[in-house]
């Protein structure tokens, strides 16, 4: 059964005020188009969970969508400070919950595999454990060793961008696959956006590449270029210039407001955003092909 719907419909149907949202993607395949649609639709009081809030949550916090962030590295990757989330934390304007990367990812792993918590070995850096009461200790019933435990994270909704999916949501991803699969399996609802919608036969031609099966997906949206200024491996490059530019924009509330007005509220959808970027920028983000060697599954 086809789950193909426009992104605006998917957000209005599956993202509610107050939801815990996990917009997946560690630097790669970050679903900016969905984040912008959430801003346009004026969602409020969201709990925004991501290992790296990245610019997508900086923009959503700036737009007033969030009451809380859950994270493990709050920086502008490769640039420096994530100014808006940082200021909101320093001023106590939003709540936060913090983990190490492994703690954060272990929470999703537990959520995705139906476990109540995930154990991790101790790191002896106990200050975060003291600051975050959700980080606890458990005893290994076999050896008696004390381990760290983090609780399962089961977001209300996960948003995952992929290179290609069929209309049912069977999805192929490649390149950095940080926590997309884990986020999808952990979440109650899954919104998939895809660079390409392909026939089921394309998915079936390479089943090892299918990280997300359609039967856990609620909506499939065809959104090319959904990740800018992040990237989609093999489709377009990361816009490093934009990450540097955001450092300047985000240092002034007026500039942020103007940017959101122009690039989020001022465009109808991702196609309009991509056109607005212009031919020169689009050309700079183009990438030359580098194909993998085909493999033979065998005809049995």
């Amino acid at each position, binding site marked *: 059964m086809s789950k193909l719907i426009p992104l605006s419909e998917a957000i209005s149907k599956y993202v509610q005020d107050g939801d815990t949202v996990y917009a997946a993607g560690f630097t790669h395949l970050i679903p900016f188009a969905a984040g912008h649609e959430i801003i346009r639709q004026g969602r409020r009081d969201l709990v925004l969970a991501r290992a790296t809030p990245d610019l997508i949550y900086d923009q959503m916090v700036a737009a007033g969508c969030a009451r809380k962030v859950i994270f493990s590295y*709050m920086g502008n990757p490769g640039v420096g400070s994530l100014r808006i989330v940082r200021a909101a934390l*320093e001023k106590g304007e939003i709540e936060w919950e913090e983990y190490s*990367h492994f*703690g954060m990812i272990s929470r999703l792993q537990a959520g995705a595999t139906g476990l109540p918590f995930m154990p991790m070995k*101790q*790191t002896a850096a106990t200050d*975060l454990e003291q600051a975050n009461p959700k980080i606890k200790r458990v005893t290994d019933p076999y050896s008696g060793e004390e381990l760290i435990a983090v609780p399962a994270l089961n977001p209300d909704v996960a948003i995952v961008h992929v290179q290609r999916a069929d209309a049912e949501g069977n999805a192929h991803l490649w390149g950095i696959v*940080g926590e997309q699969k*884990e986020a999808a399996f952990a979440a109650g609802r899954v919104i998939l956006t895809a660079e390409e919608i392909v026939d089921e036969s394309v998915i079936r031609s390479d089943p090892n590449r299918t990280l997300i099966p359609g039967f856990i997906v609620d909506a499939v949206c065809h959104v090319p270029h959904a990740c800018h200024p992040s990237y989609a491996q093999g489709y377009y490059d990361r816009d490093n210039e934009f*990450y540097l530019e955001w450092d300047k924009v985000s240092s002034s509330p007026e500039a942020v407001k103007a940017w959101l007005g122009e690039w989020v509220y001022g465009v109808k959808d991702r196609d309009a955003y991509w056109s607005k970027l212009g031919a020169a920028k689009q050309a700079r983000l183009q990438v030359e092909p580098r194909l993998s060697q085909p493999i033979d599954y065998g005809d049995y």
Partner: protein
Amino acid sequence: MSDLSYSSSELMIINAARMLRDGDVVFVGVGQPNLACNLAKRTHAPNLVMIYEAGVIGAEPARLPLSIGDPTLVSGALSVCSMYDIFSFYLQRGNVDVGFLGGAQIDRFGNINATIIGSDYQHPKVRLPGSGGAQEIAAWANRCYIMTPHQKRRFPEKCDFRTSAGYLDGKGGREAAGLRGRGPVAVVTDLGILEPDENGELALTALHPGKTVEMAQENTGWDLKASATLRTTDPVTERELRILREELDPTGMHLGSAG
């Protein structure tokens, strides 16, 4: 003595690169650690295996990666896996030889703060990015290196917040806590190199050419001891500088200006 001119950043990157051994599996960060690893790979350590926390194993970046998840790390890599896999199969299991760490504060016992400045976690004076992968890298990599400019505010007696473990409160702290890795075995600064003494306290073990013990002591927040076997680091070579400037970071993004 060489009369080459180079920046503080170049001096640190080159000295950090020299500490890597051929065949090391290194958990690499972006910026200066990335340059140090790529320099080592192009000089004395061609079999270095670079792992990035985004889940890339055996990266051979064709361009300078700006972020930890740059697509250039993926194309041509040996393997790509999930974040859970990289932190569990690779790091927690003990398959990583070297980790690079940095932070706003490094204290007397090599503990690192990358979380907050101030004494109250809920009301920080300055909110820093947080651990990322550092907490686990510091605990579980076989050995860690830290690169940082030598400044008093970066070397307090005690960190405001302990994001990742060095030698905790001194000798035996890591062993008592059951950590598998050896911890920070060297801190490379623009003045010299600090290494833990038998009590786990960072002591000055080397000076770069032209730098003095007094300079290092003035810029350290505790009573920095100089090792009895204090040495001078080998001069920076023309070849190292050429690879850094021409091949690895042609726009000089992480190299600073020579002066």
